[in-house]
């Protein structure tokens, strides 16, 4: 769901991180405030889809990106159908998806190091307060980057577990999936801590 950064030279790649973030914020705000406006919804979707194409993503890649959101669509749609009409539920889901796609466009066109530098810059004035709590702008931005990095790693663990289960002819059950995933994730956390220590971050 969260694509990793892909290097490029498009206008979106070169835009300042703050401007891109502001764009997402404004879109999310508009989607929340004008919740019944079809015009606002269509505008957000148009900007999002154009943004993907301008970033160098091919139409096929765009469809792949949308396909990755299928489970989110299901999770969002089913409960709403209990209380709302299909049209209302569809409208609400389309609003959320538009913002999720914009966020995906942000991570696709923004290098992690640029996000970190921006987070650090914004938080730096708060360092005196943060240091009292054992935190710092640098630590928070590092934690953020490790979280982003962990998403594909944990997804790859899940794929490995599914493969191992298939290799033994097992049907995947929640217990046989969640437990090893938890163990592998904890092991990964330990390795990451060692890797950080080995590179002078303690």
């Amino acid at each position, binding site marked *: 769901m969260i694509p990793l*950064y892909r290097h490029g030279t498009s206008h979106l790649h070169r835009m300042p991180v703050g401007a891109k973030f502001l764009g997402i914020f404004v879109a999310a705000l508009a989607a929340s405030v004008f919740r019944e406006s079809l015009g606002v919804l269509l505008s957000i979707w148009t900007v999002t889809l154009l943004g993907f194409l301008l970033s160098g993503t091919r139409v096929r890649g765009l469809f792949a990106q949308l396909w990755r959101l299928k489970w989110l669509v299901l999770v969002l749609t089913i409960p709403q159908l209990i209380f709302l009409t299909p049209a209302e539920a569809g409208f609400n889901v389309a609003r959320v998806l538009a913002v999720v796609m914009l966020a995906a466009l942000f991570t696709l066109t923004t290098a992690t*190091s640029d996000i970190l530098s921006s987070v650090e810059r914004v938080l730096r004035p708060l360092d005196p307060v943060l240091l009292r709590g054992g935190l710092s702008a640098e630590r928070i931005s590092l934690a953020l980057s490790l979280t982003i990095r962990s998403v*594909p790693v944990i997804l790859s663990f899940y794929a490995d577990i599914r493969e191992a289960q298939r290799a033994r002819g097992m049907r995947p059950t929640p217990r046989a999936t969640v437990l090893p995933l938890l163990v592998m994730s904890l092991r990964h956390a330990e390795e*990451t801590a060692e*890797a950080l220590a*080995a*590179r002078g971050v303690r």
Partner: protein
Amino acid sequence: MDNLSSVTTTLDAVAFEVDTAEGARRRILHPLTLTLREHRIAVIGANGSGKSTLLRLIAGLVTPTEGSLQLRPAGVRPGFIFANPQAQLIMPVVGEDIAFSLRRSISSPKGRRERSREILDTMGLGDRENSSIYDLSSGERQKVALAGVLAAEPELVLADEPTTLLDLRSTVEFTELLMGLEAPMIVATHDLQLAARADRVLVFEAGRLIADGAPGPAIARYREVAGAA
């Protein structure tokens, strides 16, 4: 054994134990007294013999449960290369990962980018600067891990089975890179060809040092213990 480095590692009765799942204590490394000064030192032995523990102790990733360990001159910064580079890489893009190592030495992001480009060029990875770390081969990933370590300009390089996950071609390339480093190095390895090029070889068996000296006799002793003589 006359190829001496500027860094001296002294272990004085250093031992290391861990807690087992049954609540008992298990000794991973038996008391060891040793002075390491050679430029290239190889540590060989079976899996679980204590090789990696020795390197982790020297790197300061774990602390001895007994004895004391000192690196001289004081303030020596060791760099550590893991067997699995995936665990070592912090940032999702190659150039960013190298730049991460430079955060303390170069303050400007532009300066870090330029320096990381230079380092990648010297490692033959110039064209991979903007690649995702997940798109690299094992060999390339290990080279990026080495580049990340070297970017921090360590005064001592510790490498824990760095060629274990590599194919033959990548092993040869990576070995040449390691051997070409200016910094002194201690490498734990199963690769006896790599060990044969060291100035001194330590052989471990079940947490004990059983041979220590020139590569020829030490490797012969290891083959004897492993039943492969």
